[in-house]
């Protein structure tokens, strides 16, 4: 049964939140949309004028923009499979019965990386990956690998970002998949284990179907977060060396904040927003069916 409530009451409950979010979340977007049709550079304010779709044309034919998109995609396809593989392994270990206390402790330690201030994660990379003073290179030395210049070399810097993204987000993936594993009805899992000794068969035929929603959630959220990725990379490499680690959010920041070309940055933002909305719609369609 639904309570019958006058529309005024509903508005009183929900109006303030809607108004607040419209002011801080929508008004700036409209402003960005407006500015994206202008030639608007903070260093040449006098030159400000309407240019129509010219900024969009510049963005879509700009190799920097496509390179940044390509890099962002490359980061996604290199980091996320590793996160899923490692995360699944961790989730399967934690899902097994026994050693309850130690598993609780491990699960708590998994919470730490994803809560850590992203900027600090980048700073940690600077300290731990330093060619001379970094502990990672010391450890590589123990197993006979020569010190690697992680931050200063374009390819290595990209690999370092992947490694660090894997460190921060594998635990998240593990916990999401663990939640997925716990949705398998225990009696089904037990029956399967009696019938086969191979954990692989159980995973493939019994657990995997229940893991699909978690995997989809991981894929969509990691896509969104990779598109948003800024803090960690900015503190670690500022998009460099050169523009080896200039992902899409870093590129927009550079154009807007270091080249002062707000019009162009706005056009890039609007394109990025369009991608975002498509993603969000997909996510909602898959996960929030019960609401409508």
């Amino acid at each position, binding site marked *: *049964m639904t*309570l019958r*409530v006058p529309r005024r*009451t509903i508005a*009183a*409950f*929900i109006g303030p*939140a*809607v108004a*607040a*979010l419209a002011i*801080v979340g929508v008004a*700036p*977007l409209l*402003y*960005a949309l407006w500015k994206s049709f202008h030639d608007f550079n903070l260093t040449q304010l006098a030159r400000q004028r309407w240019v129509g779709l010219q900024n969009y044309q510049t963005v879509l034919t700009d190799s920097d923009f496509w390179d940044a998109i390509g890099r962002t995609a490359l980061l996604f396809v290199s980091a996320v499979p590793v996160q899923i593989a490692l995360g699944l392994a961790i989730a399967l*270990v934690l899902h*097994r019965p026994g*050693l309850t206390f*130690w598993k609780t*402790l491990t699960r708590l*330690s998994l*919470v*730490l990386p994803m*809560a*850590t*201030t*992203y*900027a*600090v994660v*980048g*700073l*940690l990379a600077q*300290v731990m990956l330093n060619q*001379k*003073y*970094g502990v990672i290179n010391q450890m590589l*030395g123990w197993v006979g690998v020569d010190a690697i210049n992680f931050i200063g070399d374009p390819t290595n810097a990209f690999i370092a970002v992947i490694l660090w993204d894997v*460190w921060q987000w594998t635990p998240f993936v593990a916990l*999401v998949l663990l*939640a997925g594993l716990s949705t398998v009805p225990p009696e089904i899992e037990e029956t399967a284990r009696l019938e086969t000794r191979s954990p692989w068969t159980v995973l493939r035929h019994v657990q995997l179907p229940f893991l699909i929603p*978690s995997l989809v*959630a991981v894929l969509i*959220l990691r896509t969104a977060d990779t598109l948003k990725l*800024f803090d960690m990379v900015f*503190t670690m490499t500022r998009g460099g060396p050169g523009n080896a680690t200039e992902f899409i*959010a870093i590129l927009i*920041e550079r154009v*807007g904040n270091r080249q002062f070309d*707000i019009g162009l940055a*706005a056009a890039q*933002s*609007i394109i*990025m*927003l369009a991608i975002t*909305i498509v993603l*969000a719609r997909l*996510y*909602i369609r898959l996960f929030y069916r019960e609401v*409508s």
Partner: protein
Amino acid sequence: MAAPMQARSLWAEGIALALIGLFCVFPFYWMVTTSLKTQLVALADPPVWWFTPTLANYREVLFEDRVGVSLINSLIVATSTTALAVLLGCPAAYALARFEFRGKTDLWFWFITNRFVSPVVLVFPVFLISRELGLRDTHLALILMYLTFTLPIVIWICTDQFRSIPRELDEAAMLEGASQWRIFRSICLPLAMPGVAVSSILSFIFSWNELLFAYILAPNAAKTAPAMAISFMEGYDVPYGKIMATSTLIVVPVLIFALLASKHLVRGLTMGAVK
């Protein structure tokens, strides 16, 4: 035969758990120990694991480098935006959970979309607007902008929480003649306190961690701790000990909160899709 097999697999499992734990915790260990090193020790090649710890870095960053002020700025901003989000978000969540109205699904969709919007999309227009309004470099600008992610978090988690409260309670109170507001205020809100607490912790964590808005909108007076930490990176001689001391000061409170809300952190990050 079964017993030794089982013992061995238990050992293997124990080692796997230890490795997972080490993987997660080691960077924090390195952060804290580096913060206790003098610059000379921090720049030892190869890095040293045993040394005489010193608190000099903490003394310097807190009392000479304005990190103390930036931590207070962070605290002001994160607490205020969380309080504001709870104040605005709880009634909205209650309405979404209890009332039927046109456009509810669209509203819901819009709230959720905010989880996906990158701050970099908003930050430049907001920079220009805040300059016009004289809000640049104020706490208020950050508090308002952080609502873009704190408000949705509160609304999502609390809507779930309100849904779990039996409607019969509302209906009984209604028959007694209680107003809608009173039902919300005196019956449902107290019962929804766990959800309010969790969403407050999560919005605090996310606001405390935020860098991009802080970096662009608050360069001096209202500078928050993460923005302060990265300002040490400028210059040639990078003070590793000081950077790690600042990082430790930033991270310790969020980690405590994260452990407190550990069961709900994943739910918060997936916007409730994963329980």
